[in-house]
């Protein structure tokens, strides 16, 4: 059996890096990208491209690099994303361009560029959406809206480009990454804030990047052959509970 070939966007750190590491363990040939330079500890077989997915030419370049390095493409994981913590009234044109550029246009750019080779070989797309695309987090208007776009695009690709291509989205909850640490650091009492956050999760802990990588691995596998157009939540039970959690008052 030929090795599978995957593109993972935003693979330098956090969830993206965990996805890269997991796919490498799954014997997938991986190419990953971000706007920064290659992380020093990235495993050597992984191909690195410096690219801004919001830029059409850059996005096409990532797909070309995958095809020239490995001759084919089997999996696209759209993980690259940015968040800006502002409500609509405070959001600038530059904020719009940045969030919508990476989170919406970037996913569109990568899907459009990758669909021809994915269609040829029969492939899988996994987009990283968010629970915030279903219910709102306060003060994150453009981010919330951009993730709802990802969910909608996921369903559209599934119905337009199946059966050759399967397309699904993962909606992570609170995953312990640099992004989450930034949020806790802003709290009056970071330790109390972290404890409060943990207690809101029926699973009794926050998520870790590997929780998301596990589902990417499964969605990319033949076990998920009938899973298509779905937005799957991995949040430790957070959104199964009411936003009101009177036990914590």
């Amino acid at each position: 059996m030929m090795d599978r070939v995957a593109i993972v966007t935003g693979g330098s750190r956090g969830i993206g890096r965990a996805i890269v590491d997991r796919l490498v363990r799954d014997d997938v040939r991986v190419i990953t990208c971000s706007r920064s330079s290659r992380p020093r500890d990235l495993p050597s077989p992984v191909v690195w491209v410096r690219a801004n997915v919001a830029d059409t030419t850059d996005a096409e370049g990532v797909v070309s690099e995958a095809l020239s390095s490995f001759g084919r493409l089997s999996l696209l994981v759209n993980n690259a994303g940015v968040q800006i913590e502002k409500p609509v009234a405070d959001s600038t044109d530059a904020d719009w361009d940045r969030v919508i550029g990476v989170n919406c246009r970037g996913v569109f750019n990568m899907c459009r560029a990758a669909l021809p080779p994915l269609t040829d070989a029969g492939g899988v797309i996994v987009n990283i959406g968010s629970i915030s695309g279903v219910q709102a987090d306060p003060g994150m208007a453009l981010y919330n809206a951009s993730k709802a776009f990802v969910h909608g695009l996921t369903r559209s690709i599934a119905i337009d480009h199946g059966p050759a291509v399967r397309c699904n989205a993962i909606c992570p909850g609170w995953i312990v990454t640099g992004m989450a640490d930034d949020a806790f650091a802003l709290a009056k009492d970071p330790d109390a804030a972290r404890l409060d956050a943990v207690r809101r999760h029926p699973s009794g802990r926050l998520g870790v990047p590997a929780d998301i990588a596990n589902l990417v691995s499964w969605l990319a596998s033949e076990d998920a052959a009938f899973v298509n157009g779905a937005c799957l939540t991995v949040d430790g039970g957070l959104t199964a509970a009411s936003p009101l959690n009177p036990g914590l008052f």
Partner: protein
Amino acid sequence: MCETKAPILAGKVALVTGGRGGIGRAICERFRSEGAVVYPADITKSGSMNASGETAKPGTRDGPFIRLDVTAEDSVRSAMARIGRDESRLDVLVNAAGIEIEKTIDETTLEDWNRVLAVNVTGTFLTSKHALPLLRQAARHSGSASIINFGSYDGFIADPGLAAYCASKGAVHALTRAMACDHGPEGIRVNAVCPGYVDTPMLQSFFAGDGSGGAGQTLGELQTAVRDVHPLRRYGTPKDVANLVNWLASDEAAYASGQLWVLDGGLTAQVQQMRL
């Protein structure tokens, strides 16, 4: 009430189960002010309220109170027979009778479980089933009839320690869609309203019960904190719910069917709010 607007339920005959509860009472009052003939029905004349019974406003015709146990088929049959005899039809059925038990499944006895399911689910089934002939009469008479069930935002997501209640409301949601599909062709619309935290005796009981689990706070502090999680910074009132039920009962909602109408002050538009 608004004097400048024509009453939008003029001439409609309505049965409201749980009609002596916090929300049911507000619905009856609103229906009357909109010109409906209202039959409030409940298991006792005071229902879940301690207040004395209200009287019809001068100039409005009021149906009499009907003693109704929605879990007993004979009781449901005789309520419908009475309305059939007096009115020959039923335009609006509101299934507002409901109970909750504040327990996890570990603490819930089979008797608890059966009681919650009996009132919230079986009751909705029985009243709807036996109202169908009268609702069909109304649909033939005026083109449409309407059933409004009581779901809950708890039918979508869970509050802690309310397992049987959450399950019962999820069942009402599914039953609402099923009835809408089956009886839409007969001109019967079926919708559910799904309230969040509405200030009623049931909510007070939830706060006072074990399920709310306030961490060493007074009841007042707890209620204020919970209130402030709502984007609108207040609890719902029975009147808020009656406003929606009134619209769903009216011909303004002629194309609305099979839907679950969440009314929660924006509560479930948000992800759980961490205290940062």
